[in-house]
């Protein structure tokens, strides 16, 4: 569970996030949706302290994030970014083993977990010895996900994880991924500006504009009763919604 209270972030004089409050329940998938530059990434990174808030508080599973060591907090929170954020000098196997090793897992345990993950994510065994430069974009993305899920974190943060993929692959990867049991019990905060993605994956959508939340609701509620013209326009304006 993540509880965000009156969160504000200023960069010099520019306010990227203003007085934002939001509670995300255990096991829920919450999508942060909004136009470019509205503060989605900033909000997300404050949860794992890659950005420190100017004011307000964030509690993860009841504990204030500022009251714990950043690296310990981050090891308990999966983090996925666009194109995977893989290290060029780590093989797929090493990438998946990164966080388990940080947490001192034994080699046997790591091997079991790696096999489990690549099976679930449909990554062929032969990929394990390859470097990121030798993978396709979709494969890199899946490896990035596998790395984030390796230690079964209760929370996963994803920042446009499918952003670099073509629309077809994007749909395919995200269906596979969100079809996993693994993610069912996991709290997921996903940032996107792709409306169809948000509608498909979200339990609830938080629609943002200029650093504030405009409306938080389930996809259905958002479509049927938009809180403002902005919300309606934002959801309407996307032609590919018709294909879903």
């Amino acid at each position: 569970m993540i509880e965000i209270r009156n969160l504000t972030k200023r960069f010099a004089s520019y306010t990227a996030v203003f007085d934002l409050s939001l509670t995300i329940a255990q096991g829920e998938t919450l999508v942060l949706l909004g136009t470019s530059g509205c503060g989605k990434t900033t909000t997300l990174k404050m949860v794992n302290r890659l950005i420190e808030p100017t004011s307000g508080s964030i509690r993860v599973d009841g504990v204030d994030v500022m009251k714990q060591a950043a690296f310990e907090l981050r090891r308990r929170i999966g983090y996925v970014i666009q194109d995977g954020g893989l290290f060029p000098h780590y093989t797929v196997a090493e990438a998946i083993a990164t966080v388990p090793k940080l947490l001192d897992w034994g080699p046997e345990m790591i091997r079991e977990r790696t096999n489990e993950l690549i099976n679930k994510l449909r990554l062929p065994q032969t990929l394990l010895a390859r470097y990121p430069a030798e993978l396709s974009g979709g494969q890199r993305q899946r490896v990035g996900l596998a790395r984030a899920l390796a230690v079964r974190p209760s929370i996963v943060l994803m920042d446009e994880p499918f952003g670099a993929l073509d629309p077809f692959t994007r749909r395919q990867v995200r269906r596979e991924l969100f079809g996993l049991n693994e993610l069912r019990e996991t709290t997921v905060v996903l940032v996107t500006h792709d409306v169809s993605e948000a509608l498909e994956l979200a339990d609830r959508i938080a629609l943002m504009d200029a650093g504030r939340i405009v409306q938080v609701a389930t996809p259905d509620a958002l479509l049927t009763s938009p809180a403002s013209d902005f919300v309606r326009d934002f959801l309407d304006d996307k032609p590919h919604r018709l294909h879903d």
Partner: protein
Amino acid sequence: MTDFLTFVREHADKLLEQTLTHIGLTAVSLLLALLLGVPLGILISRRSRLAGSVLGIAGVLQTVPSVALLGFLIPVLGIGVGPALMALFLYALLPIIRNTYVGITEVDASVKEAARGIGMTNRQVLTKVELPLALPVIFAGVRTATVINVGVATLAAYVAAGGLGEFIFSGIALSNVNMMMAGAIPAALLAIGFDVALASLQRLSVRKLRIGAVAFIALMPFLSAFYWLPIQQDKLIAGFAHEFYGRADGYPGLQKTYGLNLHPRLIDQNLMYEAIRSGQVDIISGYSTDGRIQAFDLLVLADNRHAFPPYDAAPMVRQVTLNRFPELGQTLNLLAGKLTDSVMTALNYQVDYEKQSPESVARTFLTRVGLYKRPEPRQRSETVVMGSKVFTEQYILAEIYRQLIEGQTSLRVVTKTGLGGTQICFDALRTGAIDFYPEYTGTGLLVILQPSAHTLANLSMQSDSIYDYVQHQFHQQYQLNWLKPLGFNNSYCLMMRRDQAKQLGIKTIEDLVNYMER
């Protein structure tokens, strides 16, 4: 070519020692530069405000010419390994700091953020992500530093730190191409070898590069150890100028005549005196009337067996001039025997160290020997032109001659000082551009007459016989006259600190040989 190979074969031992020393110097300085440069590079990649000044300082150090850098370091670190290592270390620093810094800052920001985002500590981000990814760039810096250092390490030979520069600089001093090449070719091969080896390491994948880097760093202390291989150490340590070490009438002559066998360190002429003063060496080569003998309280060892050819000074005058002004010859001969070694050394000392003018030193001297006369104010219509080479002793002699001639005769003296070396003076004299200049018998013999090895071998190296030979030959070949010798002999010599020589009871080169063999 065969000469070259013969030289290399004959000096194989020395060459091997120099090469190992060279590698050792390069490796030690590189290791030190890595130990400081990599952490500094990391530091400034963390605190970008420091980056400008640190890179700036390292950059300025890099632009100081190597000889000047050694010059700055010698007063602080003395001579020997200290200044050589320090200079090499300073040169290697910039490429290593800069490439560490650039390598780290150029790691993709999203990769660094992902590393922090999945829970790596700052140290883990550095050691597991940034450094491995920066390694190829750091390696490129090490490669640059290595090649620079192999080159600069030749200068170690200036400060008695050994290395391949010994042959290079001796070869240059002696115009001995084979000797120069025997140093230059291995130095070039070393540079190319290191470059190729490091280049191939650099091309390895990041993973293998890590292994390569570990191997390289492990190899460094091993290579460094070459420097400390037991070098032969004598009871007394000799420091010789490169030229003296190589010239047939220098150290080789000494070996032949006295059977003296030393393991001399080679060092720049002008640094030798500082080296013996500070006790870093005990015996140096030099010239017997150098003012520094007095300044540094040195003792010239007597050369009773005449290993060093005599360099007796005497005025050399055109026969034509002597015929025209017979009084000139008589006047110049007034000085015969008046300027002994110790007198000349003292005069040199007064000018070089007490900063007196050659003019006043000359007048005091002439007054003391009773030859000074105030020039009578009279019409001087006849002129003689006097030349001199460009060093203190010759300036003083020129001044003595001028005052002597103007005091004793009605001739007017025009002085052309600063005629450079022997060849220029000699040519000026032969063509009549000057009428006379002071020359040394040994120089006349070995530089101008250049008799065959056979003739030389049959010549007795006593002052008198050389003087007679030179006088006769010059008169016959060039119509030039050597007047009577001034009395001092500015030849090669060996010297020691006076107190040490006294304590060990060494007065002559024979004493030295006996002491060393005891």
